[in-house]
């Protein structure tokens, strides 16, 4: 078997690729630095791009030495993951889709393969083909690693933003002494309504509030689950000694609630936040009176 013998003589193709990468490190780095992926990310100087390309090549050589060309979790890649993530993020920010970034990574392959073929002038065609395939596989894995890293980054971003949404979307406002309000905006799921309930109850304790107004003007739809959450919040506030008023139920939502057959009979409702505030003020024994003609607005008539 001649092929087998050649493989014995020169080591496995992937090891050959590893050696080639180390031998031609400088040339590949120079060529890669001209590719859009490196050129567009490292704009300060060309040296920086070359440096970055060198790091990636070293990582690839390490992976090739370990003969793990198919393994995206190979130890060699962990070193460059952060850098790849930064590059991917920079391209995404520039408005490139994931597929475009992937193509840019793929564009690194032809220069490397060309160099490899030029580097093996006296090797048999079979050998050249095997080495080129091994390099292609390795570059494909690099592409996967870049995509994987970019997706992970996005996932982390989404999780961070979800957390921020939870914090941002539930402010408790003190409207008056003893009156607090929560303007609910957006869809209420169980996680959010739990946060709403907790922050509202905490505010009731801190502000010594006797009235809590839940304004649902900004809630697009109310289903049985949302209604149940509302009733739970109202019940919890009542247990703490505060009265809960739900305001801002739009006609369409009122109709839905009636259609669903939900009983909100125990919940005190008012048409708007203003009505709810007026009710709470009245119950507290204070009211808002329009200034009369001879009132204190100007002091004289």
């Amino acid at each position, binding site marked *: 078997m001649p092929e087998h013998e050649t493989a014995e003589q020169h080591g496995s193709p992937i090891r050959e690729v590893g050696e080639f990468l180390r031998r031609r490190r400088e040339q590949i780095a120079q060529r890669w630095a001209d590719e859009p992926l490196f050129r567009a990310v490292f704009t300060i100087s060309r040296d920086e791009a070359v440096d970055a390309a060198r790091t990636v090549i070293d990582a690839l050589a390490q992976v090739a030495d370990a003969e793990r060309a198919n393994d995206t979790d190979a130890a060699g890649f962990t070193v460059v993951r952060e850098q790849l993530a930064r590059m991917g993020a920079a391209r995404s920010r520039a408005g490139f889709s994931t597929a475009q970034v992937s193509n840019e990574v793929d564009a690194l392959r032809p220069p490397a393969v060309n160099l490899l073929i030029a580097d093996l002038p006296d090797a048999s065609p079979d050998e050249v083909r095997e080495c080129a395939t091994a390099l292609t596989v390795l570059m494909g894995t690099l592409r996967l690693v870049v995509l994987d890293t970019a997706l992970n980054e996005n996932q982390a971003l989404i999780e961070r933003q979800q957390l921020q949404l939870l914090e941002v979307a539930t402010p408790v406002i003190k409207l008056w002494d003893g009156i607090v309000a929560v303007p609910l905006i957006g869809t209420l799921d169980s996680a959010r309504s739990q946060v709403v309930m907790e922050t509202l*109850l905490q505010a009731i304790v801190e502000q*010594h509030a006797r009235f809590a107004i839940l304004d649902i003007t900004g809630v697009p739809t109310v289903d049985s689950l949302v209604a149940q959450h509302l009733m739970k919040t109202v*019940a*919890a*506030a009542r*247990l*703490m*000694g505060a009265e809960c008023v739900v305001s801002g139920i739009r006609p369409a939502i009122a109709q839905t609630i009636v259609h669903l057959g939900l009983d909100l009979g125990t919940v005190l409702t008012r048409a708007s936040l203003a009505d709810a505030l007026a009710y709470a003020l009245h119950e507290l024994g204070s009211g808002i009176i329009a200034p009369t003609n001879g009132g204190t607005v100007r002091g004289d008539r």
Partner: protein
Amino acid sequence: MTDDFYRVPPPHVPVLRLGDVLLVTLQGDLHDSTAQQLQQEIGETIASSGVTGVVIDISGVEIVDSFLARTLAEIAANSSLLAARTVVAGMRPAVAITLVELGLTLPGLRTALNTEAAMDLLAADTHRPGGPREHR
């Protein structure tokens, strides 16, 4: 030794009389037997002294289980039979959430933010025509 330390008899809950109001302050964990004993004591005290209101301050209670919740509701029901109004004051947010999640919304129970608010609530009731003991 440590076992004996934890096995001290359940503490007696003080029931204080302030004018027309009974003030009961619950602290820490409450044994089931203590809660029942308290229920009995409040009933007897209302019957003998003729107070018109009971304020149960549970701001010092971190855990309310279904039994204690039921006992509170029963105290309220007992007292209203004896013509006294019960207000539970100072429930913590965590306790309120737990009770609601357990489905114990205690519909008949009156609540207040703190003892002071509970006193105000009872005072407002007494002065209202048709309030408890108005005819006396």
